[in-house]
């Protein structure tokens, strides 16, 4: 396992922590004051910081650190997590997510935004009231010390990142035994750090911990190597060294201890406050005499006092030396040990630490899970697909060869069929994931857009544990983001207008997911103004979508917004209304085999309803025969099937024919002709018409020769070995082992409108 893989694991965990962080903050936002929720949020940020530190992701560390400090104030009840505070925190969570993404994928973040948030967070931590989201006074607000804590350390006044990328944090010393140190007299802490072998097994590294410690302040360090046995007796995985550190820092004992937080259970750690220079401190912290080996110290002086008084340069030099020594020492151990094992253990360090954290604090006991490569799952799904096909083929040939159907073979086959079904369902369930992560991303989208538009919006989600295939989830995010933007930007009114209309100033956007008859239904509703039908109609007339005297139902007008190049926003904004609007959304939903509908009540808001298949691997289809070929038509596209009567068929022009269905006329499309399976049009009366609804909203009657039945089919790609075939969505394999093509209803319908399939086909063939 190399460093990149370890890093990848870290980022995966970051994602989980970020999700945990956000859901925790949202719970707090909803009034949850459970200390465990605050702890969970704190832990999430802390874990990210810890992992990021191990990888030297300084930007991430410094931001997480400030965030953590503020969260600590909430945890210790110094800061009331009210709406304003949580608003800043939610934004910080977004920035933290951005920083994580940047650390993984490269790119850059909005520095101004993160700096601003750092200032806001620090202001909150310092208890300084500050106007949120106002950029200019931020620095000033930080610089103004809170009267109750006059010792807010000097660096806080200058919020510029130092070379480690850490933002200086103001720190109150009220907690330290009432001792108020004068300006330059920094307290000194003695740290005895004795790692146990477990520390190394879990991938922690003494040298790194000590290096972290050295960032807190001036430090002198001594490594005790007395217990190191001769090489032949050396256990490569055991810990033999321990360190004695004396550090001058203004960050306090908590900061010192927090360096060792992940290692706490795998080492003996003693931190005590030593005499701070000339001032004799009456500390109420326990001062324990610590046994340590003085022989290696040059002067043998009393380290507890002596160290603190040592010349700065000497101390620094010593510190560097000691860190180097510590590094070398642990390198020896590592080299002696099994290197690869150490590396793989290293990878688990963050996980182990986080897990331990959870276990220690008695956090929620999650069900055990494993991480599996998606490729492996997909391979399994493919194999099960083969199994299903094979089983169907076997059944078919048994039925063909054994007409009476009473043999035990038949019984066995039935059981086999049930088993394969069950296996298929279980395998599909592996890919099924809750929609929660997408919904959480939407929460962020809402926040950002609400900020930009100056509207006040609350996002309510429901059914976020509804499960659906991962591919569907991945592809859902984009259209959903677009719709949310539309809902907030166009749907909701400004607070003033809302108040004028007798609504609360805060708008509500509701996102729900549920299972309904083998599909997932996602609803997005807002309590805004609803669709302005007059405006939509006028716009459609302006854009030549409809004629001025067209007689349209309310529903038809609402559906006009799905037409390409349609936007009712008066001005083109950054958010939406760039002409790539709901038509793109509709197309991406349809590409997923889904449908989208809108219903709107003027003054009460609009609701978009999307119905999507649970998986993209299988499809419910109607198996039909066209010109001797077997085709599969996706069931979702079919509105109804009918047997045309001769009287219902009307010729229209030279080649077109219409069929009258309940007094409306619908164009007949001969599938065999469109796909070039036959050269002349079939007689409609001899076939079956499938009434389908397509992209444009219009209906068409597709003529096929016969219907064989309905079947769930496994979708196979044609593009993998061949190219895209116009009019065909994909292929499948039927029970007899033959390949059947799955009809692309939309492209067939648009072909019937005159956009020739043949044209595309000839292009493809021409190469």
């Amino acid at each position, binding site marked *: 396992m190399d460093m990149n893989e370890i890093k990848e694991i870290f980022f995966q965990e970051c994602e989980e922590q970020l999700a945990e962080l956000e859901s925790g903050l949202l719970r707090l936002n909803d009034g949850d004051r459970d200390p465990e929720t605050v702890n969970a949020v704190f832990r999430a940020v802390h874990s990210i910081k810890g992992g990021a530190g191990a990888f030297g992701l300084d930007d991430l560390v410094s931001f997480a650190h400030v965030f953590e400090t503020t969260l600590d104030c909430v945890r210790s009840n110094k800061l009331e997590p009210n709406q304003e505070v949580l608003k800043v925190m939610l934004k910080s969570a977004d920035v933290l997510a951005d920083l994580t993404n940047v650390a993984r994928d490269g790119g850059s973040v909005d520095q101004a935004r993160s700096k601003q948030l750092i200032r806001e967070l620090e202001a909150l931590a310092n208890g300084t009231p500050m106007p949120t989201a106002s950029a200019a006074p931020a620095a000033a607000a930080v610089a103004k010390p809170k009267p109750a804590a006059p010792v807010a350390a000097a660096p806080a006044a200058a919020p510029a990142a130092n070379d480690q990328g850490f933002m200086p944090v103001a720190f109150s010393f009220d907690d330290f035994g009432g001792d108020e140190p004068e300006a330059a007299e920094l307290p000194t802490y003695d740290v005895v750090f004795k790692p146990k072998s477990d520390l190394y097994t879990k991938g922690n590294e003494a040298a790194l911990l000590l290096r972290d410690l050295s960032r807190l302040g001036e430090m002198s360090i001594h490594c005790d190597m007395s217990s190191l046995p001769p090489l032949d007796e050396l256990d490569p995985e055991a810990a033999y060294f321990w360190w004695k550190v004396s550090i001058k820092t203004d960050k306090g004992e908590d900061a010192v201890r927090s360096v060792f937080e992940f290692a706490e259970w795998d080492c003996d750690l003693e931190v005590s406050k030593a005499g701070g220079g000339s001032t004799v401190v009456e500390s109420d912290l326990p001062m324990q005499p610590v046994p340590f080996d003085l022989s290696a110290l040059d002067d043998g002086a009393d380290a507890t006092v002596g160290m603190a008084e040592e010349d700065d340069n000497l101390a620094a030099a010593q510190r560097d030396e000691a860190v180097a020594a510590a590094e070398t020492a642990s390198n020896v151990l590592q080299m002696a040990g099994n290197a690869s094992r150490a590396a793989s253990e290293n990878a688990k360090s963050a996980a182990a630490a986080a897990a331990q954290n959870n276990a220690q604090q008695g956090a929620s006991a999650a069900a055990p899970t494993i991480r599996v490569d998606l490729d492996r799952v997909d391979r399994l799904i493919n194999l099960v697909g083969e199994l299903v096909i094979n089983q169907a083929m076997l059944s078919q040939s048994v039925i063909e060869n054994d007409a009476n159907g009473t043999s035990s073979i038949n019984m066995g086959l039935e059981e086999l069929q049930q088993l394969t079904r069950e296996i298929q369902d279980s395998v599909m369930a592996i890919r099924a994931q809750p929609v929660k992560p997408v919904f959480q991303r939407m929460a962020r989208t809402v926040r950002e857009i609400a900020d930009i538009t100056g509207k006040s919006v609350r996002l309510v989600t429901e059914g976020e544990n509804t499960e659906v295939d991962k591919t569907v989830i991945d592809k859902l995010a984009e259209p959903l983001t677009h719709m949310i933007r539309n809902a907030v930007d166009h749907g909701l009114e400004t607070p003033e207008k809302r108040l004028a209309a007798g609504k609360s100033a805060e708008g509500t956007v509701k996102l729900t997911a549920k299972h309904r008859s083998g599909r997932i239904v996602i609803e997005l509703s807002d309590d805004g103004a609803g669709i302005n039908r007059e405006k939509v109609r006028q716009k459609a007339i302006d854009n030549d979508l409809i004629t001025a005297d067209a007689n349209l139902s309310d529903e038809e007008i609402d559906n006009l917004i799905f037409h390409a190049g349609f936007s009712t926003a008066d001005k083109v904004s950054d958010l939406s209304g760039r002409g790539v609007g709901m038509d793109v959304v509709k197309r991406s939903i349809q590409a997923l085999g889904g449908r989208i509908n809108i219903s709107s009540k003027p003054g009460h808001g609009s609701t978009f309803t999307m119905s999507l298949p649970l998986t993209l691997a299988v499809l419910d289809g109607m198996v039909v025969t066209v010109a001797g070929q077997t085709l599969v038509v996706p069931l979702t596209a079919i509105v109804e099937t009918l047997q045309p009567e001769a009287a219902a068929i009307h010729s229209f022009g030279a080649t077109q024919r219409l069929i009258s269905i309940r007094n409306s006329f619908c164009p007949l499309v001969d599938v065999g002709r469109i796909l070039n399976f036959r050269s002349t049009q079939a007689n409609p009366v001899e076939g079956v018409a499938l009434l389908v609804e397509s992209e444009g909203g219009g209906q068409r009657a597709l003529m096929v020769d016969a219907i064989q039945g309905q079947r769930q089919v496994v979708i196979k790609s044609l593009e*993998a*070995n061949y190219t895209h075939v116009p009019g*065909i969505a994909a292929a499948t394999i039927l029970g007899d082992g033959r390949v059947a093509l799955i009809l692309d209803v939309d492209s067939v319908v648009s072909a019937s409108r005159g956009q020739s399939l043949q044209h595309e086909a000839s292009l493809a*063939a021409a190469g």
Partner: protein
Amino acid sequence: MTYLAQNLTHGGRELIAFRIGDQEFCVNVMSVREIRGWTPVTPLPHAPSYVLGVLNLRGAVLPIIDMSARLGMKPAEPTVRHVIIVTQARNRVVGLLVEAVSDILTIKDENIQPTPDVSSEFERTFARGILAIEGRMICLIELEAVFPHSESEAA
């Protein structure tokens, strides 16, 4: 060391030869996945004439190319005696319908003669050299040129 390995290490290669009409062609054996008999295919709409259709190869959808038509000869009338050579180039797997597989040849690169300078589409597109073996002439085919063009290439 086996004869084959010896040959390969000395710049030799193995080719699989097949027959269409009275002509012989060959492709590199490393690109051949399997050889199977003919079974009826599912025709594809709007496909070029040399693409007969698709076949189920253990769950994968395998396009079948009529090599006779592809190389500009008269279209084959597939019978049970016809053979499908399942070949792979890059990531695509395609079946080639031929009349029969005739030989497996082990040759050295220097045995391959350049194609004669005849101004035909066939020579420029598909032929990569010719071999003279025991008085027969066998044409080495460039597999990727035979494959149907993917959409991205068409665009």
